[in-house]
């Protein structure tokens, strides 16, 4: 797959910021969350939910990215990601640089945005306006849209269980 091609991104809001991940990584969106909290989990795990008989672990993305509490807003939606084997079975996704994990994971976000096409060429690698709130390792790059900045998440880092969230 030539990297110069356009990719579609699923965008979503956390606080006032717009984030995006490659749509090929997304399995589905859940809007009415019936989250069960789990005792003794790390703070960035919001809980688990039942998705047609499968148990999905939901990551509180804002917590994971170390957002302040009062920056949260919205009702809360969950973006369910594909598992790594679902990605492998579809070779188009395989050549993406992103990986998910073997388990079923969902990301808890505030609001869902549009699906936007992003040209690889328009991705700025290290944003000059350094966002001090965000840990840079979670960011793959940013894209200037007409009216705002789209922050592309480094999903592999976000899902990485080794990194400790301070």
């Amino acid at each position, binding site marked *: *797959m030539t990297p110069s091609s356009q990719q579609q991104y699923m965008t979503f809001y956390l606080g006032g910021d717009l984030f995006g991940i490659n749509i090929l990584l997304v399995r589905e969106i859940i809007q009415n969350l019936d989250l069960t909290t789990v005792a003794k989990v790390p703070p960035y795990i919001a809980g688990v939910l039942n998705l047609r008989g499968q148990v999905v672990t939901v990551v509180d993305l804002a917590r994971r990215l170390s957002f302040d509490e009062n920056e949260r807003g919205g009702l809360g939606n969950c973006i369910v990601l594909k598992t790594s084997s679902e990605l492998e079975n579809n070779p188009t996704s395989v050549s993406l640089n992103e990986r998910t994990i073997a388990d079923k994971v969902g990301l808890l976000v505030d609001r869902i945005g549009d699906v936007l096409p992003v040209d690889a060429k328009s991705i700025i690698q290290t944003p000059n306006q350094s966002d001090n709130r965000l840990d840079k390792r979670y960011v793959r790059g940013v894209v200037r849209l007409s009216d705002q900045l789209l922050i592309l998440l480094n999903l592999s880092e976000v899902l990485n269980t080794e990194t400790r969230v301070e």
Partner: protein
Amino acid sequence: MKNEVVEKKLRIKVGENILSTSIERMNAEFKKLVAENEGSVSQIELDLEGVETIDSQGLNLLIGLYQECKRKQWGFRVVECSETVKWLFTIFKLNDVFGVERVGN
């Protein structure tokens, strides 16, 4: 479709997936381009950048274009194939026929 004539080469950039839903239109376009450039070109270079999928009907279309060129004794080659498309051509034993070249990466 974007196209330009450089020296005696007609470069056609397809720019979209070649699927049965769109081939009627594409076929018509190809025909038009061929007719328009009759006499002023001796080679067609098909640029498949951005083309990820070619279904069986799409294949027919490409072969049709190839045969068309052969009839007119024009050269024909395909450039900027993605890995998937190149592999597709391999399966159909078309790679050497089309003189497939992949540029980049």
